[in-house]
Structure formats: C-alpha cells, structure tokens
C-alpha cells in the first residue's frame, strides 16, 4: 500500500509539474479563422484585397436607404406616402429622433472608419515586400472613398467630425465637430491625393482610377465654389452670406479643369443609349466612373453587406422584382412627373407610367405593361430605375439582392459639371464647349439641343438625367450655398406629398384634389439635417449649442496648380 501510494503521488506530481512548467504554453492559442492586420500586409495583392471591400460592404447601409431618401426623397423626386424613412424627409418633418437618421449618418461614417483602417494599416503594417506604388495606390483608393463619404456628410450635416485614425478616437470619442468648409477641404484633399496616385486605367473592372477622382473633384470643387468667397480655401475665406449670388471663381476654374481632364484624357464614354445604363449586363460600363460593386446571388449565399437592396425598395410588385418589395407606394413625385418633357426618352427608363411597356420584365409572360399587366399604384407612377425583373427574367436577381450596381458617378455628370463651371457666375452662357457637352447629354435623351444654358436649364437637365440616382438634393444644397432663399422658395413650391393616379377617361394622370398632407414649410434650417439623438447623447459637441473647431490640416500633399499637368 505504501508503495502504491508513492507511485500514485509520483505519477501525479510528475505530470502536474510537467503541466505547470508549460502553463504559459498552454495559454497560447492560435487564431485559425481570422487574419490579423499585423501580418496580413505582406504583398501588393494584400493591399488590393484590403481596398476591395470599400466598394460594397461599407456602403451597404448608405445604399439601402440614405442614397435615395436624401438624394431623391428630400428633393421631392420621390413621394413615398408611408415609408417613414423617406416621407419624413420629403415633408420636412425630420427631428433628431427621425427614423433612418442615425442609420444614414452611421452609414457614411462606416465608410470613413474603415477607409481610415485601410489607410493606416497600409502605412503602418506593410512589410518590405509591398512596393511604394502599391501603397500609394491603395491609400489613394481608400482616400477616394473617404473623400466621397465626407462630401456627403458636409452636404447633409454641415459641421461634422473629421478624423483620420479610427483607433485613436475609440478611447476618446467625445470630440468637437469641424466646420463644413474644413470638411469639404478634407474631402477635396482626399480626392486630390486619389487623382494623383490612382492609376490612369483601372487595374480591375469597376475599381476607380485617376479620372474617377478628377470627375469626383469636379463635383466637389463646385460645392466648394459655393462655400468660399475667393481664392484657395485657407480657413478665412468662408462665405457667410448665403444669398450673395456668386461663387468662388478659383474653384469654378478648378472644377472646369478637373472635368476637362476627364473628358480629354480618360477612356470613359457616354453610353449611346440611356436605357442601357440600367441593365445588370452593363455594370461597370464605359460611362460609369464609380459604381458600388454588388455581388450577385442570394443573401443566404453571399451574406449581407454585398447585396444590392435598392431594388426591393423601388420594386412595386413581385412580378417586377424578386421577393417582397416595399416600393408599391414609393413613387415618382407629381412635381417630377410633370417636369419631364414629353419626348424625353429618360422618363420611360426612370418612371413606369400607365401603358409603358418593358420587355425585360415578366419575360416569360411576354413583357410587362405598367398599369395593364397589373393594376397601377394609386399614389402615382412607380420608379423604374434599378427595377430589373425577377430571377426568371434576368437569371441574376434574388430577394433583396438584385445584382445591379449603384451609380455613384457617371461621365454625364462630369459633362454637366463642366457646363456648370463654365456658366460660373454668369446668368447664362453660349460657350461652345459648355453647349457641346451639355447637349451631348440632352440629345441622347432624344431632345432638341439647347443654344444657351442658364441655371434653370442645367437644374432641369440634371434632375431628368439623374432622377433616382441619389443626386438631386445635393444640386439644391450646392445652389443654396449662394442662393439660399431661391432654393428655399423652390422647395416650398414643389407641391410635396401630392398623390396622383391614372384617369382612364381622360387618358392621363391626374393629381389628387387635396394637396399633400403633413408637409411642413422649409426654411434655411431645412438645408441641413439634425444630428441623431442617439449620437448627441454620446457626444455633447453634437448638440446645437456647441460650436465647431477648425481642423488643423498639415501641409498640402498635392499642389492644385500642378495636379492638372
């Protein structure tokens, strides 16, 4: 028994000691699932793999709602009677508590935060095997995304928080906002960097290139032209009179140069046919300079975050779009519907009105005639753009995953930006270059060329061309930087929230007798959105009483005078 005891103890103590001595080894575990940022960046390919998610996942929430609820809902291209995330904004009913506000704000900042992560990882974590040019290119791609996100933020909320290192802010996120012009400047510097370091030709179809950045710059410079008085922005030349009527020629000039750079040097081309822009087969076509890149497939297969779900919010029936659709009452506004010139080919592609025939919908049933194949909406004509049919029609679409890319920047916009920049502070222009590109867009739509351009012709053309592509509100915001009262008056005369329906006897659409209900009067304050209540609660600097603090920019990395050489 004694011997047994001794053996027993010896065995236990022996193994116990052995285990003890390797306690620390025992506590070392290996992560077999996830890569980590410290070891991942060991090749040029790794950099590309880190930027490829900035074209979809980070934009997913933006794309799902804010893209159209602001771009088109607030500008009254859309009348959506019952959708709380659109109609609140259309009717100027928004408060810091409104549905969709926090989501929209968060969606743009998820782009900023993840772009920062990519930029800093490339800078700090790349091994020596990563080439300098790959690093610059990767950073440029991420800065393109961040710049675009900040342009949206500056346009919608004005003063917002600028930061370039997400992890720095994690432990101390209560920081003041920065003024709108600083945010715009930050965005411009990001895109100038992108314009300088991105390759002239996209390395892969759908990735942005140098000219995508120039094209985007033409948009941003036009915004900045309204926010500043004269010369390059230096923190002091911020415009304070929003009704002064003129724009900063320095930025008008840059906008023109950036647009011309794209038009003259890049390989981007207008599609000959407007309709072809909205086909899945033409994702990343020659006219698209920046699109959100969605995967095709069921969300159960591809997951959430890389799926195109706008279609489910625009589609008006299960016959025209896969699965349950919420777009039945999401209609083209009466105001927009009336503004279409009768021969404008874009109307049929943008809005489905009574009698319109679509061969690409209900293919097996011999096509789809709106209002005839199924009864039409009683709220108005439905939105056709991004509605691409069911899986049976196109072989691609699934529920909440239609597979069509989202247009973020088309060459047509750069053409119209050029015309706007040339028009500048003049009441109208007959400049040949401006007319050439303006009319290129207009004639494609089957309309007669114009011989002179003024603000109104440009406004109209842009609204028709980009309806439901999430842009029109920003056109109005930009105008309100220097003609605020005119824009506010315009907003109040848009006959918002009015329903209309097809009158078979008259053979035409007729508006409801009663004006739209629940529409508040727009004021200068309506040009900005409130910060969401949830975030104000977390950061008192977002409260209305707090004043923004100037952002301290470092030295300009890209010289604007040499950028266009």
């Amino acid at each position, binding site marked *: 028994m004694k011997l047994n005891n001794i053996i027993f103890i010896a065995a236990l103590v022996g193994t116990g000691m052995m285990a003890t001595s390797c306690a620390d080894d025992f506590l070392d575990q290996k*992560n077999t699932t996830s890569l980590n*940022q410290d070891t991942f960046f060991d090749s040029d390919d790794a950099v590309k793999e880190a930027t490829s998610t900035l074209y979809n996942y980070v934009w997913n929430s933006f794309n799902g709602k804010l893209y159209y609820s602001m771009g088109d809902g607030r500008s009254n291209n859309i009348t959506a009677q019952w959708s709380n995330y659109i109609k609140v904004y259309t009717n100027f009913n928004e*408060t810091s508590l409104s549905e969709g506000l926090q989501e929209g704000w968060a969606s743009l900042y998820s782009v900023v935060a993840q772009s920062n992560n990519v930029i800093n990882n490339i800078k700090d974590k790349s091994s020596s095997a990563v080439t300098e040019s790959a690093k610059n290119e990767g950073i440029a791609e991420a800065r393109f995304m961040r710049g675009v996100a900040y342009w949206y933020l500056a346009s919608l909320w004005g003063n917002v928080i600028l930061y370039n290192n997400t992890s720095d802010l994690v432990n101390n996120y209560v920081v003041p906002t920065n003024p709108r012009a600083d945010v715009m400047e930050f965005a411009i510097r990001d895109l100038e960097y992108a314009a300088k370091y991105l390759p002239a030709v996209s390395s892969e179809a759908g990735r942005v290139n140098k000219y995508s950045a120039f094209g985007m710059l033409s948009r941003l410079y036009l915004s900045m032209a309204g926010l500043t008085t004269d010369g390059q922005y230096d923190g002091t030349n911020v415009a304070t009179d929003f009704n002064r009527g003129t724009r900063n020629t320095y930025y008008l000039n840059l906008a023109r140069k950036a647009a011309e750079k794209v038009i003259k040097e890049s390989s981007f081309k207008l599609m000959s046919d407007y309709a072809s822009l909205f086909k899945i087969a033409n994702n990343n076509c020659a006219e698209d300079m920046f699109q959100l890149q969605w995967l095709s497939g069921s969300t*159960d297969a591809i997951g959430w975050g890389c799926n195109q779900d706008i279609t489910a919010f625009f589609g008006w029936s299960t016959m025209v779009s896969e699965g349950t659709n919420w777009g039945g009452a999401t209609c083209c506004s009466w105001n927009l519907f009336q503004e279409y010139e009768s021969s404008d080919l874009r109307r049929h592609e943008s809005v489905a009105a009574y009698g319109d025939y679509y061969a690409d919908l209900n293919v097996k049933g011999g096509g789809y005639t709106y209002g005839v194949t199924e009864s039409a909406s009683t709220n108005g004509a439905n939105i056709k753009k991004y509605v691409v049919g069911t899986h049976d029609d196109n072989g691609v679409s*699934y529920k909440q995953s239609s597979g069509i890319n989202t247009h973020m920047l088309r060459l047509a916009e750069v053409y119209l930006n050029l015309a706007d920049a040339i028009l500048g502070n003049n009441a109208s222009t007959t400049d040949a270059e401006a007319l050439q590109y303006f009319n290129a867009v207009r004639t494609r739509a089957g309309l007669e060329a114009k011989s002179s351009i003024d603000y109104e012709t440009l406004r109209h053309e842009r609204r028709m061309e980009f309806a439901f592509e999430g842009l029109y509100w920003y056109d109005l915001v930009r105008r309100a930087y220097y003609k605020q009262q005119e824009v506010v008056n315009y907003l109040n005369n848009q006959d918002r929230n009015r329903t209309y329906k097809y009158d078979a006897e008259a053979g035409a659409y007729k508006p409801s007798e009663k004006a739209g209900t629940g529409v508040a009067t727009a004021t200068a304050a309506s040009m900005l959105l409130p910060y969401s209540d949830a975030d104000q609660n977390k950061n008192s600097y977002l409260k209305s009483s707090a004043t923004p603090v100037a952002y301290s920019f470092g030295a300009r990395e890209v010289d604007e005078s040499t950028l266009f050489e």
Partner: protein
Amino acid sequence: MIMKRTSNAKKTLGLLFLFAMFPLWILAQNITVKGTVSDDGGPVIGATVKMKGATTGSVTDLDGKYTISVKPGSTLQVSYLGYQTQEVKIGNRTTINVVLKTDEEMLNEVVVVGYGQMKRADVTGSVVSINEKAVERSVPTSIDQVLQGRAAGVQIQANSGTPGASTSIHIRGINSLNATNQPIFVIDGVVVDAAGVDTNDPLSSNNPLASINPSDIVSMDVLKDASATAIYGARASNGVIMITTKRGKAGEATITYDGYVGWQEQAKKLDMMNLQQYATHHNARAAEGIVAYSDAFVNTDALGEGTDWQDALFRKALMTNHNISITGGTQASTYAISGGYLNQKGIAEGSGYKRLTLRGNTDAQVKKWLKAALSFSLTDSKQEVGADNGLIMNALESQPSVAVKSADGSYDGPDDVWMPVNAIAIANMRENYNKKMNFRVNGSLEATLYKGLTLKTEISADYNLNKFYYYEPDYKFGVLSNDTRTGKWTKTDTKYWSWRNILTYANTFAEKHTVNVMLGQEMSHSHWESQASTATGFLSNSVHDPSAGDVSSSTGTGTQVNNSLFSYFGRAFYSYDDRYLLTATLRRDGSSRFADGHRWGWFPSAALAWKVSNESFMKGTANVINNLKLRFGWGSTGNQNVSDWAYMALLASKSTPWGTGVLTANNANPDLKWETTDSYNIGLDLNMFSNRIEFIADWYYKKTRDLLLQIPLPAYLGSSGNGAASNPWSNVGSLRNTGVEMTLNTVNIDKAGFQWRTNLVFSLNRNKVISLDTESSTIDKTFQVGSDVSTVTRTTVGHPIGQFWGYKVIGRFDKASDFYYKDADGNVKAVALPEGSSIAKDKTWIGDYIFEDINGDGKINNEDETFIGNPLPDFTYGIGNTFSWKGFDLTIFFSGSYGNDVINYNRRFIEDVRSNSNLLTSAANYAQLGVIDKNLPADDFRNLYVTNASVTHLPRLSASSTNANNRMSDLYIEDGSYLRLQNISLSYTLPKNIVRKIKLENVKVYMNLQNVYTWTKYDGFDPEVGAMYGDALMTGLDYGRYPSPRIYTFGLNVSF
C-alpha cells in the same frame, strides 16, 4: 457496527459531528431495548439507534424495528438523515417506539463549497442552499425556476417564456456591465463552461441549467460572497452555483418513477382592436391624410370581429414529464442511474421543448486507501424557436382585416407590404429549431495517503453538439412573398476538458484545533467550432436538407476558437474549539483571453466566523438559542467574460467582385485585463427553539473595478451597419453593489401531526456606478426597431446602471393657452416646442404632447432627455408557506419584486395612434380636436381644443410626425412591481403501511399550479421581463417578450 453501509457523505459526517459533540459514557449492566422507528408515513428503515454517548448502535430493519443493548437509565438517541435527532430517556422501559420528525435545515447538513465540502456549521462565507424538497414542490422544467424567491440575494428573471429559454440570474445585483452577468455553474465539482453560447440570442438556452433534469438534483448551493467564491478566481465574480446530483446508497435498489402531465395557457391577453374598431380608426386616420381610404372599410357597421391574432397564435399547450431512477449498491460500490423525458409544447405556435436525459453516478472503494468515482450525463434536447420576439410583435401588429387562412385553406396575408407577415403561417411553415446534445463525464480517484491526508485527481469533459436548423419556404401571403427557398444548418461543437489535482489534509489536534487544508492545481481548455452551410435552389418545400438545394448556390463556412485557463489554488480552514473559525483562500489564474502580460491574476480571500453560542457564557441560553454565529468575509474575484481575441485587431474575409477581400473586423484593445470585484460580507446565523426559528442575515459591499464592456461607440466611429468593425472591449470603470439579504424559516405550528412552516426571503441591493473612464462618462444603449433607433438606457457615474433615458411628457396642448405660460416675473412666454418646430398643423398643434424643457432653453431637443425610470427593484422577496398533515403537503409560494420600472416598448408601436398596424383598443381614444367657434376658421389653433381631454392620455391624429409624440418618453415607463402567486402545490403521500401492502416503498400524488396570479400595475403581458439579449444594460425592456405561461400539472411519484 451493523448499520447499513451508506456512502452518503452527509450521513458519515453527520455522525462524526455527533461523536465530537458528546463525550463517552461508561457502560455497565446492559439491558435490551426493542422498538419501532417511524415517521408520519410509516416505518423508517436504516435509522441509527444508539445509546447517547456510545460509539456503536443499531440500525432499523425493513420494518423499522431495532434491538439494542443499553445501560438502564441512559438516553436513547435516534437519528436519520433528514430528520431531527431524537433523544428518549429509557427509564425502565424495554420497548420504545420513536416517531421521527423531518428536519429541513439541519446544522449538520453538508454544504458543497469549492473543491470540497463543509459542515454548514463550519461555513464562514455566505452560502444559501436549496434542497431537493424545494425542487419537488415547485415542479420546475429547469432548476433555475426553483431559485426564484427561495434564495436570498439571488434574483432570477426569465428572459422569455418560451420553453427551454434562458433566465437572467443575478447574484447580489448586477456587478458587471458585461452582457454575461451569469454566475458559473459547478455541477458535481465540475465547472460548466458556457463557452461558445450566443449571448446575443435571447432564446438560446445559454444557461447550462436547462440541460439538467431537475429531479436529478439533491441540492443547489449558491456561493454568494467572495470568501466563498474566490476559490474559483477569474470566473467567480458573478457568484457560483454548486449543483449536486443524486448518488447511490448501499442497500437494496430503490426504483422511483416520477411523472406529471401539465397544461399551459396564456396568462394574460392584450386588448387589441377588432376589425370594426380597426376600420373605424383607419377611417379616422384617412381623414387626417395619414393613410388612403380603404374601400373595404366604408361601412364599418357591416364588419365583424375580424381575426384575433393573439387567439390565433396562442394555444393551450400540453406538457408531460417522466423520470425513472434506480439507486442502490453494496458497501464497496454504489450507483445512481436516472432517465428523464420532458415534452413541453409552447403556448405560442411554433414553440416547444423536448428533453431526454440520462445520468449515472457510480462510486467505488477500489482499495482500502483508494476511492474511484465515475459519473456521466447525457442530455438530448430539441427546442422549437419558431415564435421569437419578432413573431409575437407580428401577431400583435397584424391587422384584424387579414385572415389567418383564406377560404381555399392557404395562408392569407396583408395587402400592405409594410404590415407584418402572417405570424401563424411563419410559425408553422418556417423550420426553426435547434437540437442540442450534451455529454458530460467525470472520473476521479481519491487516495488516502496518510491519516487525514488525501489526494484527489479528477478529469472532466463536457461535450456539446448544438445544431440549428432553419428552412424558409417560398410563400405568398397577400402581397408579402418570398421566392427563394433557403435551408440553413449551423453545427456547433464544443469540447471542454479540465484536469485538477487536489491535496487535502484534515485533522483535529488536541481536541480543540481543527485544521483542513487544501491545495490544488487545475487546467482547463475549451474548444469551440462552428460550421454553417446554406443552400438555396430547392425544388420543393418538401425536403429541407442543404444537399437538396442547388450546390452551385450553396455556401459553407467554418470557424474554431480555443481558450484555456491555468490555475493554482489553496484553502486553509482552522477552527479553535468550535468557537473561532477561519477560512483563507488564494487562487492564481492565467487566461488565454488576454494578451501576454495581462494574463495572470491573484484572487485572495479570508473569512472569520465566531460561534457565539458555543461560548461558555451562552450556556444558559442554550435551550433558546441553539446556534448563533457571526461571519465576516472579504475576497477578491475576477471576470474574464470577453470575446476571444478582443485584444488583437482581426481582419474578416469577405467576398468581393475581385475575389476575397478583407475588412477590419474589430477595434482591438491590447491592454485588456481582468475585471476584479472586491467584496466584504458580514453575516449572522441564528437558530432558536431547537431550530424552530432560523434567521440568516447578511450585509455586503462589493466594488467592481476594471469593468469589462464592449463599448457602444457612437455611430460616427463607424460602429454600426454591415461594413462596421465591431466595438472594442475595454476596462471602463468601477461600480458598487451593496445590499442586505434576510432569510427567516419558521415552524409555526407543529402539533398532533400538523405542521405549518413559513419561509421568508428578502433581498435588497443598491447599485451605483462609481467611475467610468470614457471622457463622456456615459454608456448609452440604443434599441432599433425597423429604422427607428432610440436611446433606451444610460449608464453614468453616480447612478445605478442601465437607467431608462428619454423625454418627459408633462402634458398636452389641449387648448391655445397651453402654448404659453407666465414665468416668475409674470412675463408671458411660449412653451418649449421641439427644435425646428412651430405652432402649425403640420408641426406642433393642439393635441400634441408637451415635453419638459429640462434645461429651460425654450426648445425641446435631446438636452432635455433625462432619467425616466429605474429597472432595478428596491427589493425582491419570496414567501412560502407549507402545511403538512398526515401525508398531505400544501405549499403556497409567492415571489415578488418591488420598485422596479419596465419600459413597455410595445406601446410605442401598438399604441401609436398614427400607425397602420393593429393597435390596442385604447388607441382609438386619441385626442380629438373640436372647434370653439364655428364662425371662426378651423385651421387657427386659437379656435381649437381637445374635446376629450379629460378621458385620454393620447395625442391627436396627425399627418405630421414633427412633434414626435411617440418618442421614447416616460409615458412608456410603467411600474414593474409585482407580487406573483408562483406556486400552489398539493401532494399526498400515501401511508406507508398501506403502500407496503402492495409492495411499494412510497407513493405520492401531487398537483401544482404555477404562475397562478400576478398582482401588478403593469399593462404588458408580464412584468417579469428579464434582460433583452441577456444584456444587463437592457434590463426591463419589454418588446414582444414571449409571456410566461400559467401551468397546471398533475403528477405521481412511486418508488419501490
């Protein structure tokens, strides 16, 4: 000694105690005494009968008879586990029959403490025990239900009423901000790690208790203060629940069958609109331009009741339970084997729970110096989770105009895509269930190396195989359709093993110095792996396995996680003269969850107890006060509940059009470390009048520092949405819990076979945040419904955690003059309106709410949000009364909570007068506007007033939402206090002499009513809300919680 050998340690220790208490008598001139020992049910077999002071005695036989040789004039002592020991003066009698009385709270009972056992009398810490009688009386499906109201300081709330769902168990308040505030469970000495459970799923049975068959339980010991829990170190700060299962006894086998059948029903129904009411309200909304008129609602008088979706979803549900156990053994080896089957249907369609359990415990004395034990348990369960929170809301919000089924028998649906999908159809057609298999095995060897010195080595393993099955068919319910058939399987395997070696030395020196020293070492490892496969392209809904889908559109993913813990620990117990007791423990833990340099932590504790009643000066009061003990304890415990790899920035692999890409998955915190709780405890144990009154009181103070929390970052840090990196874990501050708990057990009447016992339990806890390290010093929790994201709770320094946060409604604009008030100087001022609003029909108007302008800046914005409620109760309590008479046992048990608030978040939606979904009938009583003077314009607010102001609290119907009347406000905060008649159970144990005649040992029939009635002011289904997602900071938020059912059960217990 001819007593039947029992391996039951309680009994052995109990005898040891008796030996120690009474000095030896000198024996001479013995006589023989005979008799029978019985209780109120009949003869007692195996009772020990001996002469007081003697070391040997006799044991009663199968008929309860004994024979013993004793000295005349001495005292006979009769004892049996579970009964009060009786002493009978022999005098000159030779036949003495003894009737034993049950004793539920014996001081001699053994309490399971960390890595060992102790006599209750020696315990220095705060430990509360629940015995099997309490389990029997409450007929639980899961044993956590037994703890509710029965253990002071333990707050139990069911997070959902769905069968098999988890409960929130908080021991002495919420002392972590972390989502997992659950204590650890130690089943027969083995820590059951909840690794790999999805704490975000309120329905997941993430508490290991759900997998245990309650009838296998002998006792539950809840270790509350740090001096008791510190031996579990890094995992102990939320408390420890020790569970002991039944083990065998030497002797002929006992076979017991226990079974019951029960019915469950919805305890309360909400008063939702019927079709006519809904149509009338719809027309009123259409008149305001909120919605288009519906042709179907033109003549509301012609409409009937429509669909009652609550009736459609809820049903009377059956439950059955069967258990069989066999225990027995020889002197050298004993066994206990049991099998159980539970089948519980849920009261909502699509919910249910089935559980099969099998357990075996064997113990053997393999050598004179070596004991071996082997235990295993197997649980196989299936939980139907078709009726989740979403579905309950669906049923409430579904319009009564929609039928459950169309005339052709197919499921119907709404004509509005924004309305909820047919809840009944989804519950029945969608496959949504999980199957869980758990296998635990535990083997140990214990060697007696030297007198009093033992070495035990024990290996335990815990395997879980969790499988989740999901299939969504294609359907078309009204305008809602789904064309994609999707099947999804998720399989999660976990394996946990641990190995510990424990050296124990126990001895008593010079009669007065009792020492018990334990040293141990333990290592444990958890492995978690999960594999999910999803398929679409099924050709029909009749087969659901992923292989039946289209391989080209299927996906498969897999991931695994390992973590490990390495520990050393020790405990020293010293008792001087059974008057002064000292326990000290120390543990050192290393955890893989933290980066190198932050891995190891020390967890010490010490406790002192003074048995005042054993002092000589107390001798005179011994017949009144039979036990008085004072306890003082201090200790430090840890919490390591963070996700693995939180200290490292990971990249998630994502598919993109250009192949796989990566996205930053989390914000890392390399400095992450333990959360530590330091606590102090002062306690008093008092037993009077031979234990007829037992009183236990404790006061405690706990301070938790380095609080672990996944910081809810603001949205502008990119913290939400599909492309967001997850929020970082951090050590954010400290908080304090202090409280008092009291238990009073009394035997009120014990006469002529009638006994009335009362148990009172009272727990009071106060929680306060001491510091937070974030600059803003607040932690806000938001809750999202659709696109509505609202802050619901705020946690900030100086307040208890998770306080409800929002606006205060101070009135309604009932007439034009309400828009103005006179300030202190008599100046007329405008009442504050929401920022950006003004007096206009499309903004703020007559009939809209007035919110309190807390900062007095003349406008309502989020600076006017404030604390509007406290989800934490002032105190909780339990009252139990048991009446016993001739085999009848009647227990009436109440549990309650006082002073806590609940957010009735449902009302934000089902009492929103503007909403198109179905509403509470009360919503029809919205504020109606009337014109004061018909000759004046009706669009001038000065000519309007609320006509029904005195009878409604609701706002007007408005096409505008600018005033945001349904914003998160104190209107949705309700008093969540309740008193619940939790149980009425009645049992009858047939007299043993009758039972014996039919060769049975014991027969008991019983019935039980559970959740009988609840006294509360709360308007929702059930004031017992628990925590949303099991998150302590979301306590008291009720949004479509599955209501707890009322249950009637009838059962039978037979053993032979």
